[in-house]
């Protein structure tokens, strides 16, 4: 069963522990610009949203990659990046509809979430479980159920 990083913006406090943990695990330094996850904040509304690679099933970054550097790992839902094959053409950066593949001038490499080899450091660092690494069907079930609960409450009020 494939796992998936599920975000819960309603729980996110905007602390960026995920961002700094990612940057540290990947680069052994604190450089949010090099993190594979970013958190955007809307301060007037008091809400923050974490963003990272969605490991798309039909991934534009792999389609446009001319060398196979950006590729799907066989038998897995993970999109992996092979630095040795990469020619730094940045076509993946152009193609990603979410802006989640980024070229880093500092390291001359493409940076993109690889789920830390199936053990995402961002998830471990989140103090409020606003990002979770869960089985895909369970993740969607819990979200569907939380909305179903709102419907249920609305119907109960009407009845």
């Amino acid at each position, binding site marked *: 069963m494939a796992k998936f990083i599920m975000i819960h913006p*309603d*729980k996110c*406090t*905007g*602390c*960026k*522990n995920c961002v*700094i*943990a990612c940057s*540290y695990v990947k*680069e*052994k*330094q*604190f*450089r*949010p*610009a*090099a993190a594979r996850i970013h958190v*955007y*904040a809307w*301060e*007037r*509304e*008091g*809400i923050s949203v974490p963003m990272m690679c969605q490991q798309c099933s039909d991934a534009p970054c792999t389609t446009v990659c001319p060398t196979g550097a950006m590729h799907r790992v066989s038998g897995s839902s993970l999109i992996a990046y092979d630095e040795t094959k990469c020619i730094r053409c940045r076509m993946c950066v152009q193609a990603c509809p979410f802006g989640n593949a980024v070229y880093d001038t*500092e390291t001359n490499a493409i940076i993109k979430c690889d789920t830390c080899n199936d053990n995402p450091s961002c998830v471990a*660092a989140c*103090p*409020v479980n606003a990002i979770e690494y869960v089985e895909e069907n369970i993740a969607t079930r819990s979200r569907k159920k939380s909305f179903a609960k709102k419907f249920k409450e609305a119907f109960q009020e009407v009845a």
Partner: protein
Amino acid sequence: MNGWTGVILRVNLTTGEIKKEPTNLQNAKLFIGARGLASKMLCDEIDPKIDPLSPANKLIFAPGPLSGTMSPSTGRFDVVCKAPLTNLIAASSSGGSFGPELKFAGYDMVIIEGAAKKPVYLWINDDVVEIRDASSVWGKNVPDTTDELRAVTDEDAKLACIGPAGEKKVLFASIMNEMNRAAGRSGTGAVMGSKMLKAIVVVGTKAITVADPEAFEKAVMVARKKISEHPVGGTGLRVYGTDVLTNILNSVGSLPTRNFHDGYFANADKFGGETLTAKYLIRPRGCFSCIISCGRATKVTNPKYAGEGEGPEYESAWGFGSDCNIDDMDAITKANYICNELGLDTITMATTIACAMDLYESGYITTKDTGGLAIQFGNAETMVKLVEMTGNREGFGDQLAEGSFRLATRYGHVEFSMTTKMQEMPAYDPRGVQGIGLNFATSNCGAAHVRGYTISPEVLGVPFKVDQHDTKGKPELVITFQNLTAALDSTGACLFTTFGIGAEELAALLSSVTGIQYSVDDFMKAGDRIWNLERLFDLKSAITSKDDCLPERMMKEPIKTGPSKGDVSHVDKMMPEYYQLRGWDTKGIPTPEKLKDLSLA
């Protein structure tokens, strides 16, 4: 360098000169960073006698060596200057992401000198630093200024700015960052206004490195575990915010009420953290690297006081609440929002209104003075109006803008001002809690709870319980807390980390990040050094031992109702022992031996 970036940015607004200079490593070792290191720079560079609102004052923005790392809840920075409210050295602490962003841009601190002739803002984009025209945002409130300056710089820039209150030099104007975070106390915003500096906007993309990654990871895991398993640090503050303290302090009879005429308020629950969570909270918020999440994104739907923003914190809820004899949480929350939007310190704002209400009810202020406003205790509508008027210095608000000490002095009754060293006491009654009174009386920035939070042991039982009414052992306790806090502040840590960790864990984090070994003793001694440095500045600028005191009401007027009924403060009884344990002479002056021991002489 690790932890520190090794670069200080110095900007002179009179000449327009922008310089980068190396951080002095010897000073960094001794004074750590943030409050400590910035205070050392200020003390070396300005004459303590200067007018705080003159171009001779300097304004320093300083994160600490832990800021920007994944050390938990340590992303803070301090704003250091000579304060206009008190004439003492100020180090007002704020959270958010501004401090870490300064480090990512490559700077241990930014020192602002001189004053511009017209409104400007500072734009820091890594190495590129520009002084830019701010006339289009001068006069605007904090959220609008934030949005508009991001639109002309970078939409995700981190931004510290003043609102109209700072521009108009309200003596307790705050500096706000990321809209809702405040370097609140002592009037740092007025100093920024006096320099015609509307904002500092920063984007940083560089790295902060760690000296000993293995030791650092271990220290982070230990600190995270201890804080998250603590009932206050791990649960209480996230669920209820700091306002969880309202019912706790009331239950021990130490919730100051009606400008400190009493220490108990029957309707406290109406503005307590439980009510805030149930009726106003949208979600908890956290500063950079925070695992505690005490921030409150909130909303008021009542059309009369409608708004959204963050807070109130406990001190703000208390100040606009029981201290003004008000239990209307809609009005209290609205007053807090207005303070954030106009850039006002909520504690001094609320308690100055309480002082005005007290003077009004005693007949020393009349409607002739207030422009027709009846400002009796409990009048929520007028309270909210007065906040707005103060931020804009309109009508009677122009008098409130000077703080309660100057207001009460103006009407010939300074004893109505609940201040020490001209700064208002926060939400802990020194008659009911003896140690905190000693901390207020000796605090180097005037009354402040965050300089030696003995409420932890005296009320909350953290890390151990002592009797709140007893004076025995309190001088030593206060000194320990003051020294620990001075060192802790200087790392960039949040005071709330002490709900879980202490000097041992902080020293381990600091050592592994910087590569300089700090034992627990070294760490505590750094705190002692910083405390004495501040004391020396204050003795040269404005005070003598006579100022190490509380308002006479605390000794002469016992708490009237509640569990601490009949109590008064015994601060005078504790003071000689405090001086002696500090290594000060009977006049409260640090002895030459003490200064030598601390490498201050």
